[in-house]
């Protein structure tokens, strides 16, 4: 049974997606339980795979029984197992969270919505699990296409944002495909493990250099790295809340995973150190990304748009951790992938709950929200602490490793940028917390005081509140646990020569 | 591989591509895009990729053109560049 777990991870949500419209044809209310059931399977299977990887090391799964360079292979190692658990759990929670939004915004279209949601999660997990370069492209397109469909269904302006996303996303995916073509032309293989053994002899070939450049550019577009981030704020701000909750935290992280895979598994680290100065370029782009993201976030009053600019900066963190090319930096980057996915997910959940309750997304709408939605705002405070890097929350630990990595690489500018960015985050979140907790009730802007007016509690429905509480608890628990995560998982994901 | 045929087809393809993005009337541009697709099919048949060629002829040039025409019918065929 446990031998077939990797196949279940993809097959269950894919089958679920194919059958959802069939079920929804007659029994529309059954779509949601069906989707949840089909998403519970990958959670179980990915946790099983993670445990197997921890106990007995990386393993492969040959689809159809064909040996790897000829057939397609699933390759599960420590990094991909960790990513699978992350995607499966966040996918399940996001689907639970989607219920009230779908009931109000997409009445009558539940089957389509849940189908696309399942396909999105299938695509994300497929990118992580597969060990074949072209298969990654196919899954990348599955999750991009379902993402286009879901995002375009948002508020006013969403179709235009989606159209730009389609154009730039297609450029990214096609660049990735070009990279695959160049590598295939030079080696004749598509399997990552096979390529990793062939490539070291060819590092000085111009084809390999160009292929690597196109891989990196394509992935950077999907990730929203600084000069190529311009599609991201528009797309994620205008998307429906239940959709940006799912896509925003995961898509960037999966692309970051792909970057780590390309730089450290497909190519050996010494390629990126000695032959192309790509690490330096990525590092400085990350610095600019963090600064631009921070400044742009400070300029926003719409909190959802603010979070998308924070994401630009957070992508910078991860890329910076990758670019310093040492053990502490890469550990911090991988840890930050997990932590940041949880934090951004929680932020979007909170925004979704607040919008659902009819409050606006501008900062002044947060007035006295702590009395109306105490649990939601408590979760928001926890995320804010984590974003600023206050110790019990998980954000502190990944930033600690990132800063350690930059110091070990003697990149003082990088370290200062990281510290400065924490300060910017503190300012960003304190503005909102101050408005929510410390502003006088009734507010000075309206002029008429109702000091004694009791603000009724008006909390989000349970299906929204439960994911919020779980994620906030996870942010608190992941912090103290990070030592253990590094010891059992991440340590093995970092290449041995560091 | 017949080199002359190959070259002529490649030149036709490039001309079609340039024409398709420069014609102001969108309907004509889409028709030229279809022609581009069919020239591409010929080229691939000539290179021996028959499966790719007939998939492109039916799916790429065929259904693609139909989708474009349907969308242009629903919107406008005016273009400024």
């Amino acid at each position: 049974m446990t031998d077939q777990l990797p196949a279940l991870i993809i097959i269950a949500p894919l089958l679920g997606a194919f059958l959802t419209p069939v079920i929804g044809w007659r029994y529309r209310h059954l779509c949601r339980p069906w989707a949840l059931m089909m998403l519970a399977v990958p959670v179980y299977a990915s946790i099983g795979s993670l445990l197997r990887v921890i106990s007995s090391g990386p393993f492969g799964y040959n689809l159809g029984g064909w040996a790897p360079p000829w057939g397609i292979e699933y390759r599960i190692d420590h990094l991909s197992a960790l990513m699978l658990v992350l995607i499966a759990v966040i996918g399940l929670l996001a689907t639970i969270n989607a219920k009230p939004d779908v009931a109000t915004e997409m009445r009558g279209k539940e089957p389509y919505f849940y189908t696309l949601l399942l396909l999105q999660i299938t695509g994300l997990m497929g990118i992580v699990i597969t060990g074949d370069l072209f298969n990654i492209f196919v899954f990348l397109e599955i999750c991009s296409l379902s993402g286009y469909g879901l995002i375009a269904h948002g508020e006013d302006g969403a179709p235009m944002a989606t159209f730009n996303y389609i154009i730039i996303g297609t450029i990214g995916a096609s660049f990735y495909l070009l990279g695959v073509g160049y590598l295939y032309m030079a080696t004749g293989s598509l399997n990552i493990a096979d390529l990793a053994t062939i490539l070291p002899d060819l590092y000085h070939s111009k084809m390999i250099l160009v292929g690597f450049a196109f891989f990196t550019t394509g992935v950077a577009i999907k990730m929203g790295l600084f000069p190529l981030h311009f599609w991201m704020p528009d797309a994620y701000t205008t998307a429906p809340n239940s959709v940006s909750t799912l896509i925003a935290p995961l898509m960037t992280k999966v692309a970051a995973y792909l970057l780590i895979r390309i730089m450290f598994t497909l190519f050996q680290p010494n390629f990126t150190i000695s032959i192309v100065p790509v690490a330096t370029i990525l590092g400085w782009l990350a610095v600019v990304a963090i600064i631009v993201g921070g400044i742009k976030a400070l300029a926003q009053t719409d909190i959802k748009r603010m979070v998308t600019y924070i994401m630009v900066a957070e992508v910078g963190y991860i890329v910076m951790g990758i670019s310093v090319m040492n053990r502490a930096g890469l550990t911090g980057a991988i840890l930050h992938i997990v932590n940041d996915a949880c934090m951004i997910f929680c932020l979007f959940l909170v925004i979704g709950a607040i919008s659902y309750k009819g409050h606006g997304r501008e900062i002044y709408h947060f007035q006295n929200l702590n009395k109306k939605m105490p649990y939601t705002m408590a979760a928001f405070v926890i995320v804010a602490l984590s974003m600023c890097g206050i110790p019990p929350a998980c954000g502190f630990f990944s930033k600690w490793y990132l800063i350690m990595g930059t110091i070990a690489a003697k990149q003082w500018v990088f370290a200062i940028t990281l510290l400065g960015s924490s300060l910017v985050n503190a300012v960003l979140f304190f503005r909102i917390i101050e408005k929510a907790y410390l502003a006088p009730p009734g507010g000075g802007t309206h002029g008429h005081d109702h000091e004694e007016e009791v603000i009724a509690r008006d909390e989000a429905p349970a299906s929204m509140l439960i994911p919020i509480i779980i994620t906030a608890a996870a942010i608190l628990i992941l912090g103290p646990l990070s030592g253990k995560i590094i010891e059992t998982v991440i340590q093995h994901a970092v290449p041995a020569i560091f | 591989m017949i080199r002359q045929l190959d070259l002529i087809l490649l030149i036709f393809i490039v001309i079609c591509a340039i024409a398709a993005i420069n014609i102001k009337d969108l309907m004509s541009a889409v028709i030229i895009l279809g022609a581009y697709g069919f020239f591409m099919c010929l080229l691939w048949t000539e290179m021996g990729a028959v499966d790719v060629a007939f998939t492109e002829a039916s799916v790429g040039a065929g259904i693609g053109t139909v989708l474009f025409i349907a969308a242009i019918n629903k919107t406008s065929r005016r273009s400024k560049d």
Partner: protein
Amino acid sequence: MKNWFKWISLIAVIMTGALLIYGTHDMPAWGDPNSPANSHVSPRYILEATKLTATPNIVSAVLADYRSYDTLGESAVIFTASISCLFLLRRIRKEKTSEDK
């Protein structure tokens, strides 16, 4: 503003093209039967596919057997696209009918 943007994109395109042309320098000559692409993985398909899958068309054999998983993904892509179109365009019809009422 308009021209400025066109120039920027032209420069970006030319840079991409130059990079690609630079990459073609090391490529094996067009149609070389012994290039790595033609000699590493694919010979086994040509030699074995008919014996193992009983299909004379090697492309079909590879598509539907060796790499059938890609083909599953391909059908999932079509499915995704059609469901996306339905998801997006249904709304217009709905709104129209509600306006008509």
